[in-house]
């Protein structure tokens, strides 16, 4: 392993809830609540979790598309939360994002050429001819053809649009790409195409991905390491094989067992969790998962478990692995 | 299910509305005495339920509805110059004298007789006895004195100056207020209860005309005491009708004053003055029988009304004129030839025909023809382009010239469509090589700037109030009035002299002669193009009898009845 390209320490993002007669802040949604992890160069870090767990907010906070409330985000050892708007803008060429809904993120009135060349222009490629060539090159890289450049987004299928989104992200040779549910809107047969493309591009351009998804199979397939989030917190983070073969956190276990597998032969010992995910505006005290945890202990209600490395490169936030608690 | 119910309720409501409309109509029909008759002559008979109720209840109440375009400003006649106000106060209050039915000839009213001293400085009025105001107080000389003092003296207890009362018509007609240099009334002496004497400090040729104006009608002193500044909404006089109710911008209701000084009058039990701002809507109301008299008929509709069964067309005598004025001190209009040339170039008859549907006469004098001293011998300016060109050449403008014409932004009875008149003038003048550019200003700046002489040519008109020539000629053309009401900046010492003499003379024949001379001079000097005297038209249903419109716009309804 080389040096980490991205280091996230104690990241928090609280959204205020307005209320009362004067519309004051009466509380906050703790969308991301003290999350820390590192990403190595060339690595794919998967982040999984159910809706509302804060995985998307984490991704956007890293790029400061949402200003984090607290914590630091170090990109190549530089704390980007402290950067000025102008410096941040320059840095963005190294950090890109791909969104879930490729249609919503592409301006329907612009041609593909315009969409892809816009970031080029912003980052100083002023020569039109040069831009045009680059757009063609990028389209070919993502498996489209140069002649697609003059078309509009609605003329493409979902998978093709996602390819356009990827081409736009790649335009300025970024080092890090945050992938926010890039394949969840796609059909299975197209999903595999995009996943393969992304893997290919990673190898080709030595990219680093933070791959955010709710589909455990997809994350497993593409990631090197996987972090599991629940209610704004990271509950487990380790290499993917370790995580899938030997999950430590009860939530990870339940999550994995809930995934329906397209194989009638696998007999599973299914853990079906009771109830819903609690509201992030009013998370349970102690361990956020204790309300649904089949193994909850008294301490879980009161003390928030530390996110600790319990085995080599295997981080878990659970009192079951807390030696002092047991 | 809540919403299903609410929908049903709304449907029901809609149905009820329709039902209400229909059943209302139906019940009205059953009320009528002769339903067959009604159905056979729907058009002629004013057949709304409302109309019928009044028209057919012959033996009972006679209610007349008089509709006009705007509401009254104030029912205290002295405090306003508004014609819509005097129309009402004419019924409620009376002046010492009054005008004849169709002219400005004065005749007795509250004063049955009067005397003028030879020097023209003392006027003595003999008042009617046994007259009471509507509130029961007696009418006497003291009451007259209180009223006149109230208007002339801002310090007077009933002057209400602090409440914004200004008696501007008094100031205009009597030369100012108490203490002012031009104020003509020196003192008012109560000789006895029924005899009052006005002493002037200089003669005023139209003093008697003034005394007949509706603006100087006598209010009950007790009412002034009682209502204070609210007298403007509670008029109490000696007139044939007494005030009942005023619903602003809607209707003013008057009812018969049982103790009116003339027996048998008034004939109507009730008069309602209703406001219907839109001329077309007012005519519809007249046709459907909702109203009995409508003022302010569009000249274009007059022919239709005249030929329509059930409606009667009336005209008022001309009491105004519209004109195109010259700024006689601004080159090139300071040359009389130019002014005369323009006068010859404008086709008055065409304007009268185009804009007044024929209900207007081309004017050769500023004075309306019915006025004392009207000079019919003045030749006037024929529509003659060759003559005009000749005159223009004489003045040195054979190659033509450029000139500005300011057009009035508002319509007035004497000028119902100023924009079109301006265009006609523009086209007329282009025939003799004058290039006219039309200037448009808002009304208030228009009045202000023309007063300051910024204009070259402009459009305006004048309406009479007290039926005296002085009000027309002095105001508009006396050199002393330059900068106030004389917007032509016309100054002719000879004319000024004639007008001054006429103003102080008390011999009406002499006055007439002086005014005739003045008109002759004015015509020669051509300070303005007198365009037309418009004849206001109005309509009534044929049920209205004895209705005689007066040129001043206010006529008594005492004699009017409904058939």
């Amino acid at each position, binding site marked *: 392993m080389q040096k980490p390209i991205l280091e996230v320490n104690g990241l928090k993002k609280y959204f205020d809830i307005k209320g*009362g*007669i*004067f*519309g004051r802040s009466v509380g906050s949604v703790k969308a991301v609540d003290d999350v820390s992890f590192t990403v190595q160069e060339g690595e794919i870090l998967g982040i999984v979790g159910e809706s509302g767990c804060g995985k998307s907010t984490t991704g956007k906070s890293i790029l400061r598309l949402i200003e984090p409330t607290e914590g630091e985000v170090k990109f190549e050892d530089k704390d980007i939360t402290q950067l000025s708007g102008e410096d941040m803008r320059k840095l963005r060429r190294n950090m890109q994002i791909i969104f879930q809904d490729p249609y919503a993120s592409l301006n329907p009135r612009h041609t593909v050429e315009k969409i892809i060349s816009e970031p080029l222009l912003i980052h100083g490629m002023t020569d039109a001819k040069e831009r045009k060539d680059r757009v063609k090159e990028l389209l070919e890289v993502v498996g489209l053809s140069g002649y697609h450049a003059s078309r509009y987004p609605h003329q493409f299928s979902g998978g093709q649009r996602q390819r356009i989104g990827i081409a736009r992200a790649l335009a300025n040779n970024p080092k890090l790409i945050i992938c926010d549910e890039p394949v969840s809107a796609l059909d299975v047969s197209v999903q595999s195409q995009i996943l393969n493309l992304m893997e290919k591009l990673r190898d080709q351009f030595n990219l680093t991905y933070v791959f955010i998804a709710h589909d455990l199979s997809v994350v497993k397939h593409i990631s090197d390491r996987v972090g599991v989030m629940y209610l704004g917190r990271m509950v487990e983070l380790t290499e993917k094989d370790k995580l899938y073969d030997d999950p430590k956190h009860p939530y990870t276990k339940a999550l994995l067992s809930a995934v329906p597998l397209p194989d009638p032969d696998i007999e599973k010992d299914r853990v079906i969790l009771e109830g819903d995910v609690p509201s992030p505006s009013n998370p349970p005290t102690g361990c956020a998962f204790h309300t649904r945890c089949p193994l909850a202990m008294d301490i879980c209600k009161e003390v928030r478990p530390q996110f600790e490395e319990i085995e080599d490169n295997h981080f878990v936030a659970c009192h079951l692995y807390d030696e002092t608690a047991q | 299910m809540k*919403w*299903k119910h609410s929908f049903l309720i*709304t*449907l029901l*409501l*809609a149905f009820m509305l329709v039902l*209400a*409309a229909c*059943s*209302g*109509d139906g*019940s009205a029909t059953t009320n009528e005495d002769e339903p067959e008759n009604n159905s056979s002559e729907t058009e002629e008979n004013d057949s*709304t*339920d*409302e109309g019928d*109720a*009044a028209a057919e209840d012959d033996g009972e109440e006679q*209610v007349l*509805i008089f509709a006009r375009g705007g*509401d009254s*400003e*104030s029912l205290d006649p002295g405090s306003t*110059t508004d014609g819509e106000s005097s129309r009402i106060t004419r019924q409620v209050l009376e002046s010492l004298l009054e005008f004849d039915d169709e002219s400005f000839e004065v005749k007795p009213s509250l004063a049955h007789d009067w005397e003028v001293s030879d020097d023209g400085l003392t006027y003595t009025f003999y008042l009617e006895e046994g007259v009471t105001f509507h509130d029961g107080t007696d009418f006497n000389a003291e009451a007259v004195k209180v009223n006149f003092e109230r208007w002339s003296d801002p310090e007077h207890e009933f002057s209400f100056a602090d409440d*914004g*009362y*200004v008696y*501007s018509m008094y*100031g*205009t007609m009597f030369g100012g207020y108490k203490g002012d240099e031009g104020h003509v009334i020196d003192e008012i002496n109560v000789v006895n209860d029924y005899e009052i004497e006005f002493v002037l400090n200089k003669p005023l040729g139209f003093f008697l005309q003034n005394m007949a104006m509706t603006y100087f009608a006598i209010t009950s002193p007790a009412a002034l005491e009682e209502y204070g500044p609210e007298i403007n*909404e509670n008029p109490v006089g000696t007139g044939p009708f007494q005030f009942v109710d005023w*619903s*602003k*911008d*809607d*209707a003013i209701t008057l009812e018969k004053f049982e103790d009116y000084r003339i027996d048998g009058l008034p004939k109507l039990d009730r008069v*309602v003055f*209703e406001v*219907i*701002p*839109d001329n*077309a*809507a007012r005519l*519809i*109301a007249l046709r*459907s029988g*909702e109203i009995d008299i409508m003022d302010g008929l569009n000249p274009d509709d007059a022919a239709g009304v005249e030929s329509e069964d059930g409606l009667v067309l009336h005209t008022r005598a001309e009491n105004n004129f519209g004109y195109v004025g010259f700024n006689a001190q601004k080159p090139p209009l300071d040359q009389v030839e130019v002014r005369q040339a323009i006068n010859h170039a404008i086709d008055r008859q065409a304007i009268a025909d185009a804009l007044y549907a024929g209900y207007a006469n081309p004017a050769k004098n500023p004075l309306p023809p019915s006025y004392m001293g009207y000079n019919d011998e003045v030749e006037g300016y024929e529509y003659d382009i060759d003559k005009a060109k000749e005159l223009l050449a004489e003045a040195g403008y054979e190659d033509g010239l450029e000139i500005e014409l300011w057009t009035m932004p508002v319509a007035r009875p004497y000028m119902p469509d100023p924009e079109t008149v301006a265009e006609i003038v523009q086209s007329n003048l282009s025939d003799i090589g004058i290039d006219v550019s039309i200037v448009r200003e*808002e009304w*208030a*700046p228009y*009045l*202000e700037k023309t007063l300051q002489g910024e204009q070259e040519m402009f459009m305006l008109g*004048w309406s009479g109030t007290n039926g005296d020539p002085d009000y027309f000629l002095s*105001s508009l053309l006396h050199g002393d009035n330059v*900068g*106030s*009401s004389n917007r032509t900046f016309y100054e002719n010492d000879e004319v000024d002299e004639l007008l001054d003499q006429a103003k102080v003379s008390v011999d009406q024949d002499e006055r007439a002669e002086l005014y005739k001379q003045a008109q002759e001079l004015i015509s020669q000097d051509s300070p303005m193009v007198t365009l037309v005297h418009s004849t206001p038209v109005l309509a009534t249903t044929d049920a209205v009898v004895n209705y005689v419109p007066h040129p001043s716009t206010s006529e008594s309804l005492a004699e009017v009845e409904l058939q």
Partner: protein
Amino acid sequence: MFAYTTRRLLMLIPVLIGMTLITFSIVHLIPGNPAQVILGETATATAIEDLEESMGLNEPYFVQYSIYITDLLQGDLGTSLRSKTAISTEIWPYVAATFELTIFAMLFAVIVGVNAGIISAWKQNSWFDFLAMLFALIGVSMPVFWLALMEQWVFAQQLDWFPSSGRQNNRDPMQPITHFYVLDSLIHLDFARTITNLKHLVLPSIALGTIPMAIIARMTRSSMLEVMKSDYIRTVRAKGSGQFLVIYKHALKNALIPVLTVIGLQTGVLLGGAILTETIFSWPGIGRYVYEAINYRDYPVIQSGILVIAFIFVMINLIVDLLYKYIDPRIKY
């Protein structure tokens, strides 16, 4: 609900302050010296000066404004220059007249508009839909004064079904209590008069309500069509319910939310349109009051009148907001 209402009410304060400032400024931008206009073309220069002084028009604007605001806070709307009466006492009959007309016009607009919109959406592309939308298009583009005159001509002059002008039969007027004449006649227990008064309301209400009616019809139709495509309507159908329940219970209530906005806004537009309607039908309402005041340059009345109209508009929108909250449980702060 209480907190929401209170908060909405508090939010009115800056709006109201802004309103007074704007009305005051606009009124003073009207060109022309009011004294000159009041006295007309026959006035002398001294008379104009005197009047100016007595009206306080010589003071600088900000002094006039601060006096205006101070008075306003004490419920004093000033005195009309024309009638020399306190506006606060004079204005009520006008406000009541306009309110009465507005209420009936909106009743007409909402009842007819919403139902036409519903049926159009229900029978999309049918002849009814086609005709209703054609009428709506005509209705939107119809000049109010022309419609009003046509109504008078047809229904008052030719058919003689309804009176052409006024609020009541002026040959036999009634002693007003609230100045809502329909209500007053009911209080007097004089039902024949109620019918007469309602008949007076018919033509002006239709004239005034036609444009809002057309807009509401179109809005309801498109909103209904939108809602009819929604998942929850499909659910209701899947439950086996009939068309009526689908439309009048579920679709209508949902479709009404955007329509409500339009109703609120249209009521404002309608207040503006009232000047024309009130003039043609000689309805002595607030629009006429302000119109006459403008002609007369009666500054205090113009200010107060516009302020009152703006206030009514703000109030209607407050009511609409509160209705949202009532209809839609999802709305929070």
